[in-house]
């Protein structure tokens, strides 16, 4: 069983926004939805390896800052060209005002 990793404070992420989290040589994107839920995916776009933390969160979509490729950050599903490969998602929980990530 993989441990939960403390990633950031819950208030470190604005509503409908994303931040970058690096851990053990890997990089992740952690999202706060308009409904105040938290999600996490791999940090790099599956198209050209650009970090998604520079992108735009709109509803349940993260848009890559380089080519505007779109993913559903809740499911990781690619939502059309130029992205074709889904993002990997990770379980997230919030406890005592902190966001924890379970990395596999």
């Amino acid at each position: 069983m993989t441990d939960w990793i403390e990633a950031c404070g819950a208030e470190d992420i604005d509503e409908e926004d994303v931040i970058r989290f690096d851990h053990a040589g890997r990089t992740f994107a952690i999202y706060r939805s308009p409904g105040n839920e938290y999600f996490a995916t791999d940090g790099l776009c599956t198209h050209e390896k650009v970090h998604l933390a520079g992108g735009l969160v709109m509803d349940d979509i993260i848009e890559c800052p380089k080519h505007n490729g779109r993913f559903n950050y809740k499911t990781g599903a690619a939502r059309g060209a130029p992205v074709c490969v889904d993002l990997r998602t990770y379980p997230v929980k919030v406890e005592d005002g902190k966001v924890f990530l379970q990395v596999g």
Partner: protein
Amino acid sequence: MTEAFEDRSLRDSAAGSRNDASDTGGRAASARDYSLVGRDARRAVETGLASAEWYHTDIPRKQMKELMQRRDAPAIRDTAIWLGALVTSGAGAVYFWGTWWCVPFFLVYGVLYGSASDSRWHECGHGTAFRTQWMNDAVYQIACFMIMRNPVTWRWSHARHHTDTIIVGRDREITVMRPPDLLRVSLLFVGVTDVWEAMRDMVRNAAGRLNEEEKTFIPEQERPQLFRVARIWAAIYAATILLAVAMGSILPLMLIGLPRIYGAWHFVLTGLLQHGGLADNVLDHRLNSRTVHINPISRFIYWNMNYHVEHHMFPMVPYHGLPKLHELIKHDLPAASPSMWAGYREMIPAFLRQLRYEDYFLKRELPPTARPYREDLHGQAAAAR
């Protein structure tokens, strides 16, 4: 201010054993290989110029988020004006067909069809014009048909253009290759060469075939849609031609297809300024892209793509946010050309110079407030050769 630049360090590093004008005398043999499957394509990958990290002006996240925000209202307004004017001018052209009065209507119709479609294709392809995605998709499909760019091919081609802007062997959208073919460039204004190429590509794609370059950037799973669109378009053009024959009149073609020829001049006029005469094989958009101040009508037709350095540096910012972005980062950019005239006054002599010495380019001077050009990054690319 612009500095003429014969960049031997870049030239020597980027071109390896390429010739220059002094070796060959007169017009140089082309040292650049623009093929996407050729020598420079391989070299760009080997030297780290492909899919590289690019320079960005620092902008606080909060401001960037505001600039990136999508809205439907500006693009709905502009699209209603665009399509409304298109229908009105087209109706006027048909009404006055057979008299000289139809000419001004066709002049307007042609620019709206053959030039405004370029910027609509572009902005909706980025998905930034509207907040609502189906609106981006709908206008994208219409504009692609008008500008004769297969929506699948060009979505992928343009993604590559943003990954590897003006990287020789990687970027398929380099309009003026070196040394410049000025006859071909001139013919672009009347849409001759590119329309011929677009028709040739459409027929090939309708037959279910891609060329070797297309295979390098269009994924397998996208190809059936590409072929389907090419077949639909071929059917539309065939029906238009049949209608013209049946009517014994060129009028149907004056409304569908030919406006891409007689109305192309404006998008070529503005489009050449995007990168013309500037550096290639660099990793800083301030070196290879140009921002130009232009008149409000051209800005409407061009959807603010005159802010081209800003667009390349931050492609997530919608067209209606580019003037604000320009104000925010202009301290870090070369001064914008004050007019199209000023842009052409520096660009045309550069093209002429490149006829004899193709490594010549314009290096635009940065203001004292700007961070310097990333010679370190370009130097790394050079050292790798």
